[in-house]
């Protein structure tokens, strides 16, 4: 399957997809020394992001999370690439700082954990891997009655004074 997204950080990468249906906050959510997702109750809790094509809707949390991505890269534990439905500044800036190829504006419901994903600029090639053991979560079905998503996290530098 071929998909096309929008380039946030250009580059080429390949890896097995690790898909989260929920946003990821890197500061406090991913351990920069092990690469493991440590946020309590997160769908990816206990899994390593190292070398994976990390697929999630968008970032969340503290702006210092950009530096967590940088630390992961320094330790050789960074994701091979990042694919978002809609990018926000924390992960975008972190991906550029860390040199991690990143695209957004991709229908991430088409990608399943274990698929082999190849990224070249804005182009994604996805080879499904139906044998890969897929974890328990399912995508929530959008409710047309529900209010629009909270986009406050899209605002720059909220509540974080003198963040690096």
């Amino acid at each position, binding site marked *: 399957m071929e998909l096309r997204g*929008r380039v*946030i*950080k*250009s580059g080429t990468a390949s890896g097995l997809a690790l898909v989260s249906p929920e946003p990821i906050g890197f500061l406090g959510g991913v351990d*920069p020394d092990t690469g493991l997702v440590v946020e309590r109750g997160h769908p990816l809790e206990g899994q390593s992001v190292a070398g994976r094509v990390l697929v999630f809707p968008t970032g969340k949390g503290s*702006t*210092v999370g*950009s*530096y*967590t991505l*940088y*630390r992961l890269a*320094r330790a050789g534990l960074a994701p091979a690439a990042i694919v978002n439905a809609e*990018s*926000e*500044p924390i992960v*975008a*800036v972190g991906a*550029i*700082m860390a040199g991690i190829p990143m695209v957004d504006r991709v229908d991430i419901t088409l990608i399943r954990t274990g698929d082999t994903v190849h990224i070249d600029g804005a182009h994604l090639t996805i080879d499904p891997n139906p044998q890969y053991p897929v974890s328990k979560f399912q995508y929530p079905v959008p409710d047309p009655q529900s209010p629009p998503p909270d986009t*406050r996290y*899209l*605002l*720059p*530098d*909220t*509540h*974080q*004074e*003198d*963040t*690096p």
Partner: protein
Amino acid sequence: MASTDLHLTAEERAMLAGEAGPGAQKAIEIVVALGRIYGAADLVPVASVQVSGVSYKNLGDAGLEFLQAWAAQGAQARVPATLNPAGMDLAAWAELGFSPEFARRQQAVVAAYEALGVLPTCTCAPYLIGHEPAFGQHIAWAESSAVSFANSVLGARTNREGGPSALAAAVAGRTARYGFHLDAHRQPTLLVDVRCPVRSEADLGALGYLVGRHARTGVPYFRALDPTGWSRPLGFSGPLQALSTDVSAEPDQALSPVQETPKVYAHVADGLRTLGAAMAAAGAVALYHVEGLTPEARSGAVTPPAVEPFIVDDLAPGYAALNGPATEIDLVSLGCPHASLAEIETMATYLDGRRVRAALWITTARAIRDAAAGAGLVARIEAAGGRVVADTCMVVAPVADLGFRSLATNSAKMAFYTPSHSGLTVRFGAMAECLDAALTGQWRGAGSR
């Protein structure tokens, strides 16, 4: 959101392709990515940059390594860029009790910024030491209180940049044109009616806390906030100094010129600094307008929004939220945002012939401290046992490591951040109440008016 990609000039495309070196390439990648995320149509050259993310306490080794690596890639600021406060006084750190290990790393951070071409001003109030953008100028500033002052009181145009994005704008010489760079986003979204007296800088801080909590990321428009009712700072007898805020200068957007040269007097400007810093901390307010006072409200560029007003008729809830239970005070911290010369003169006058029992730290910019020393103000404060501390700020310093447990301040911003950042118990009140606490070691202010 815009579906077309943002427009880049030939020079910008070349920089993005790496033709200006890997340091500049990384910078413009960040600027372009943010432009795409926020749906900008293009980039805009910036006149100046204020960079945050300086305290080693917040930056850590990863931040330091990143700055050093970026500098090694040849990244250089192309426009004047100044630096936010560090985690310590860069000269007097040892006598103030900072550890040599912290000092070495903090000095390495400042050296890395200097290698990137950023001036090591280490102040949150760059506009007090000559880095004062003109009306209508596009800038890229981090540091929420300075963003608020530059946007609101000076009429320059900046978003609330983060540390890396501001640095990227300095190296790329431009930022993405979205948010507060655009006329439409500078219009007020919230109408604020102040129906109680506002008499001191602490009253302005309590007001800012209440409005900031309510406004969040909105743009407040204050009606009936009369600066003539603000007391002149206690003990201050000098002439009121006019700031050079000429709103007819360099309007590069379609803004109607104003008839008279407006004057924002120094003590009013100090009040607005306090108000803006509190709103930026308690909410994420980057821009506000005051009827008859701030330049875009005076010029008619913005008009009051047709919404139900948010009415403030009592400041007591603001004081209650910002006051902890401390009775004994270890540390009195004044100068958040960094103290002006007029404020330091007020404090020196109060302290003449007296002696402090608690530690008294007055934080300011190195250049302001030098001026205060030249005027004899530092010697008068030191004779009373107080300190005038440069380059740092008690919000970003490792203040708990210095052995302090309770802090009194006249800054709503500091009162808001200190419990979570440092774990100290905080008292918040007017400058006179804080100086009284410095003399007695006790909090005798009411904690509310």
